[in-house]
C-alpha cells in the first residue's frame, strides 16, 4: 500500500453530468453531481455503488467519451475539456486508458480480435517487435496467443475477450486506467490472477487505477482508496481501511451491513430495501442540515447533507 502521499495525477473537481431527453417536457436526469476526488500514481481507487449511481458515467467523463455539464477534470494540472485537437486527444489516450464492462461489445464483430492491438500500435506504439510484444502481453494474462489471435470475437469466450482487453491495456504504459466492472466475466480462478496483475502493475509502474465495481469485497481486496456513490453523489470517500472500518454515511453503512461476510460472494437475497435506504438517507441529511461534504478524519470524508 502506498505510504507516502504523492501528488495527484488527476484531479476531479465538482464534476457534474446532467442528461436531458424529451421534446415537449424534457426529462432531466442528474447522473453525477458535484463529485470531487484525486487520483494519485500507484494507487487503486475503487468506485463503489449500485447500478445507476453514476459510477460508469464518471469513467466515461474521464475518458472524454462524454462532456461534463459542470466541474473540471484536471490531468496533470490541465483541464481535459480543453483538449480538442486530434493530436492532443491522441496524447491523452496514450496515457489514459480503459477496460470496459462488457467484453463482448468491446470488439467490432466484423473484425478479428487482433484489431484492438493493431489500433493501439498504429496510434501509440512503435511497430518494432509488435508480435513479440503482443505475445508477451497475452501470456501475462494467461492467454495462448496461438489460439487467440486471428479469431473473430464471437469465437472467444467472455473471459478470453476481457483478458485480451487487459492485455491491450498492458501494452500501453499508461498513467490512468479506468477498469469498469473488470472481472465480472471471469471465472473465480482467473479473477484473482487478474486482480493481482492489476495491483502489481499499479505498484510497479506507478499507474493509477479507477476500479469501478458494485462489489464491496473486490473493492476492499484491491483498492487503497474507496469512493462510495449514491444517486449521482459521492457520499463517502477515504482510504479503504478507514471507510470500511468506520462507515458514517447511512448508505455506506447499509452497504456493509448487507454484506454478511467478507470473502464470500455477495448474497443478493440479503440486499437491502431501496425504500429503507431512501428513508434513512433523507433522515441523515435532515439531521445534518447545513453541513456539506466534510472530512471527518484524515483521508476520510462524508457527505452530511445534499442541501448545503
Amino acid at each position: 500500500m502506498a505510504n507516502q502521499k504523492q501528488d495527484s495525477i488527476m484531479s476531479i473537481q465538482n464534476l457534474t453530468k446532467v442528461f436531458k431527453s424529451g421534446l415537449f417536457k424534457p426529462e432531466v436526469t442528474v447522473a453525477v453531481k458535484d463529485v470531487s476526488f484525486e487520483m494519485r500514481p500507484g494507487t487503486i481507487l475503487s468506485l463503489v455503488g449500485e447500478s445507476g449511481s453514476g459510477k460508469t458515467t464518471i469513467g466515461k467523463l474521464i475518458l472524454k467519451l462524454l462532456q461534463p455539464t459542470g466541474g473540471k477534470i484536471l490531468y496533470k494540472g490541465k483541464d481535459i475539456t480543453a483538449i480538442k485537437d486530434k493530436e492532443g486527444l491522441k496524447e491523452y489516450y496514450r496515457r489514459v486508458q480503459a477496460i470496459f464492462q462488457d467484453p463482448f461489445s468491446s470488439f467490432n464483430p466484423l473484425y478479428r480480435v487482433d484489431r484492438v492491438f493493431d489500433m493501439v500500435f498504429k496510434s501509440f506504439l512503435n511497430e518494432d517487435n509488435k508480435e513479440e510484444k503482443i505475445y508477451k502481453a497475452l501470456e501475462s494474462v494467461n492467454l495462448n496467443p496461438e489460439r487467440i489471435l486471428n479469431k473473430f470475437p464471437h469465437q472467444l469466450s467472455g473471459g478470453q475477450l476481457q483478458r485480451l482487453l487487459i492485455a491491450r491495456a498492458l501494452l500501453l504504459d499508461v498513467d490512468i486506467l479506468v477498469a469498469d466492472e473488470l472481472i465480472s466475466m471471469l471465472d473465480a480462478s482467473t479473477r484473482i490472477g487478474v486482480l493481482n496483475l492489476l495491483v502489481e502493475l499499479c505498484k510497479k509502474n506507478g499507474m493509477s487505477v479507477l476500479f469501478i465495481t458494485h462489489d464491496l469485497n473486490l473493492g476492499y481486496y484491491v483498492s487503497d482508496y474507496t469512493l462510495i456513490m449514491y444517486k449521482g453523489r459521492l457520499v463517502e470517500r477515504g482510504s479503504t481501511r478507514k471507510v470500511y472500518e468506520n462507515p458514517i454515511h447511512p448508505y455506506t453503512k447499509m452497504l456493509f451491513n448487507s454484506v454478511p461476510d467478507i470473502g464470500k460472494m455477495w448474497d443478493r437475497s440479503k440486499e437491502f430495501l431501496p425504500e429503507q435506504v431512501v428513508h434513512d438517507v433523507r433522515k441523515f441529511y435532515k439531521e445534518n442540515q447545513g453541513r456539506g461534504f466534510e472530512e471527518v478524519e484524515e483521508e476520510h470524508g462524508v457527505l452530511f447533507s445534499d442541501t448545503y
Partner: protein
Amino acid sequence: MAAREFWKRHENLYFALTNKKVLIGISIFTLMILLAIFGPALTPYSYDEFAGEGYLPPSKDHLFGTTLMGKDVFTRTVYGLRSTFAVGFIAGTIATLIGCIIGFLAGYYGKWIDEALMMITNIFLVFPLLALLIILAAYLPYRGIMTISIIVGMTAWPWTARAVRSQTLSIKNQGYVNLSRISGISVFRILREDIAANMFSYVFMVYILQFSGTILAAVGLEFLGLGPTQGVSLGLVMQNAVNWNAIQLGLWWWAILPGLVLTILVVSLYFINTGLDEVFNPRLREM
C-alpha cells in the same frame, strides 16, 4: 494463395456464398429476374394478345394455360413480373433511403431531433398504410409504375426508420466504438469501420425486406384496381382472374399460378434475408 487471401479478406462473402439459405434465395431470385428480363422474349405472344383458345389448362404451348379470352397467362405473368420488380426496386429504395436517413439522424443525434423524428415515425407507423394508399391512389387519375412506387415507398419507411434508429443507437453505444475512440482512431474511420460497416449488413437486409414489403403492398393495390392504369402487373392479372370468375370456372392456372410466382419471389427474398442474418450475426451462424 491469392484466392485464399481474397476469401480471408471477404470472409462474409464467403459465408454468404456457402450459406444454404442465401444460395437457394439468390438462385430463385436470379431466376425470377432472368424471367422478368428475358421472359417476354421467350414467349411468342404479347400480354394482351389473344394467343389461342380460351379456357386452356397449362400445356406445352401455354405454360400457365390461357385466360377465359385466350390470353397467355405465362406471358402476362412475366410481363407482370417486370413491373413488380420495377416497383420493388424503386419503392424499396425510396423506403429504405427515407427510413435510413430518418433513423440514422434520430439515432445518431438523439435529443430533440430524435424525439421529433420518432414522433413522426410513430404516427406513420400506426397509420393503416393500405387504407392511406387506397385513399391516395383512389384520387390519382392516372397512375404509372413510378407513381405507385413513390406512393408505396413514401409510406413504407417508418418501421425501417425505427429499426435503423435503434440499430444506430445500439452501435453508437457499443463498447467497440468507445474502444476505437480511446485508441486514437480518427472519427472518419470510426464512422466507416465501426458504425457504417456494422450498419451495412443491417441496411442491406432492411432493403431486402423493404423490397418484398413494397412488392406486396403494390400488388395489394393492383388487386384493388388501384395499380398502374396502363400495362400489366401481377396484381392486375390476379384481379382479372377473380373478376372474370377464374375461381368459379375452375381456371386455377389463371387464378393461382401468377400469385405463386410472386409468393416464391418473396420467399426467395426472405431466404436471402435470413441467410444473411446468419452470415452477419455469427452467433446465429453456429446454430
